[in-house]
């Protein structure tokens, strides 16, 4: 009798005991974003105080108004959006036929391609950016969005190819074979039969590539010099000094804006995250 009474009690006690470290983890991981968001709605006199509060006492939209005005965050975000979308779409278009070949056709090339995927993931970007910068400069593409788009396409290709090939592999072979027996040509098979089935995989891969390009900093820092062309990450990184702290409110508002697209994409991707991750390399 005593046993049957204490068992559920003990289980409840264990659960409570687990919640304490879990809460510590959640605070550690999520609090900085909550703090950033809260700061973005505060007035300057509420930001640099000795006893800050999580919920602003006098919430304001001034920071957003300011940062969306002459601060250039809108332009920088549009620049980033353009570069990220273009590079993600291009990378996908280039990688799709290759992903099909990698998943479906046995050939000696496959080993070379997989070798390249692995090597390109482990090389430090400094080694590739110096000659890449020189090549771009030779074609007058340094300091241009087109140049940065090309860099991002090549940079994201390895993992785009890897994830896509996983999705192609997951499709049943019989459909293609039946279509081939019926006399369908290869482009017909690719676009009529495989594409519709691949759409969820394509969407996932596109979002990965988009988020990676949206968040990227190093290449954008090296390739773009003109403030008019800068991406949102580079333009925000320029606010670091004392001046940045004095203007922390607008900076926090800009940071929230710059985080939103990646967060939205992640919320959407969340369910596919693990399978996509295990099937291929993913940059962090």
């Amino acid at each position, binding site marked *: 009798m005593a046993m049957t009474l204490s068992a559920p009690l003990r289980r409840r006690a264990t659960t409570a005991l687990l919640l304490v470290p879990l809460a510590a983890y959640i605070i550690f991981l999520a609090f900085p974003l909550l703090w*950033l968001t809260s700061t973005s709605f505060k007035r300057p006199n509420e930001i640099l105080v000795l006893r800050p509060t999580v919920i602003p006492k006098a919430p304001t939209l001034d920071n957003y108004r300011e940062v969306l005005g002459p601060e250039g965050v809108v332009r920088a975000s549009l620049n980033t959006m353009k570069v990220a979308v273009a590079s993600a779409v291009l990378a996908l278009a280039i990688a799709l036929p290759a992903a099909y070949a990698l998943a479906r056709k046995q050939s000696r090339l496959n080993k070379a391609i997989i070798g390249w995927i692995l090597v390109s993931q482990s090389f430090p970007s400094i*080694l590739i950016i110096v000659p890449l910068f020189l090549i771009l400069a030779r074609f007058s593409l340094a300091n241009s969005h087109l140049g940065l788009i090309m860099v991002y396409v090549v940079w994201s290709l390895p993992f785009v190819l890897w994830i896509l090939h996983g999705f192609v592999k997951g499709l049943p072979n019989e459909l293609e074979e039946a279509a081939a027996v019926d006399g369908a040509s290869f482009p017909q098979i690719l676009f009529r039969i495989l594409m519709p089935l691949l759409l969820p995989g394509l969407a996932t891969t596109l979002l990965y590539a988009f988020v990676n390009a949206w968040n990227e900093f190093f290449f954008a820092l090296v390739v773009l010099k003109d403030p008019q062309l800068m991406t949102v990450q580079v333009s925000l990184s320029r606010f670091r000094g004392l001046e940045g702290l004095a203007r922390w409110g607008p900076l926090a508002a800009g940071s929230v804006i710059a985080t939103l697209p990646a967060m939205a994409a992640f919320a959407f991707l969340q369910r596919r995250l693990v399978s996509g991750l295990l099937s291929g390399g993913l940059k962090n």
Partner: protein
Amino acid sequence: MRATAGSVQMAAPQAARRRLLGVLSLYLPLLIPVAALSLIPLVQGIWLGFTDYRLGSPARFNLLANYARMLGDRDFWTSFRTGFVWTFTVTGGEIILGMGLALLLNARVPFRGLWRILILIPWAMPPVIKGLIWRFVYHPDAGLLNYALISLGILRDPINWLADFGWALQSVVLVGIWTGLPLATVVLLSGLQTVPDELKEAAALDGASGWRQFRYVTLPLMAPIIVALSSLEFIWNFNSFGLVYVLTEGGPAGLTRLPMLFAYFEGFQYGNLGYAAALGNVMVLIIGGFVLYGVRRQGAATG
């Protein structure tokens, strides 16, 4: 008879060649940009590491002069030592803390689905924003950390975490762990879910405690995932740039100048592109060595 056999023999290599051409045409759109913007620059980058190339003057082959210069370059040694401390502590911290969090999220706790989403937050954020947020958390006057520690009575005077010689590296490492924790947790959690419950129950029936079940049943089954995750994290962390660039720009006095930051400043601030490429070559050697070592050990461990 002989004629047909001959034509079959003729047709086989032709069919193979046509097949190869077909495969090649599928790869072609990929191969051209990859060759032009990845393979050729990579080879060129490795080559530049053996020259005295500076922006504006022609590159001259100088054998191993760059590497000889590194041996006497105090900044090089500091930077790579920092790189190792950073890489090992961040990777280790991610795996250990990630395992703890994955175990918690694998247990029966209320609102588990919500927690599993919330822990992903740092992963989705751009590295620059992460750096900016933590600069504010660490700020000496208005920072959250000093405020919390002082009001809890742990600290008497505020510390300038990112500028203090005793604290800068630890502070940066903590942010590194914070950044990588979501990914490590998600991977480890998916690994935990593949461990069959029957094995743990059998061990429990044999009288194994919770810790012993974890140590002798769960952990050995997770070993391949842990090795793969640590190798990837090792590479990523060793090549890390944006986060620390925004946090400290390598300061104070080069204390947190990771190898990538060191190479970036050499190449793009001082214009020593040859030396920067040489630093990149050394990084490749180090990464290659560690990954090979890891793969060998894993191969030896599994048979």
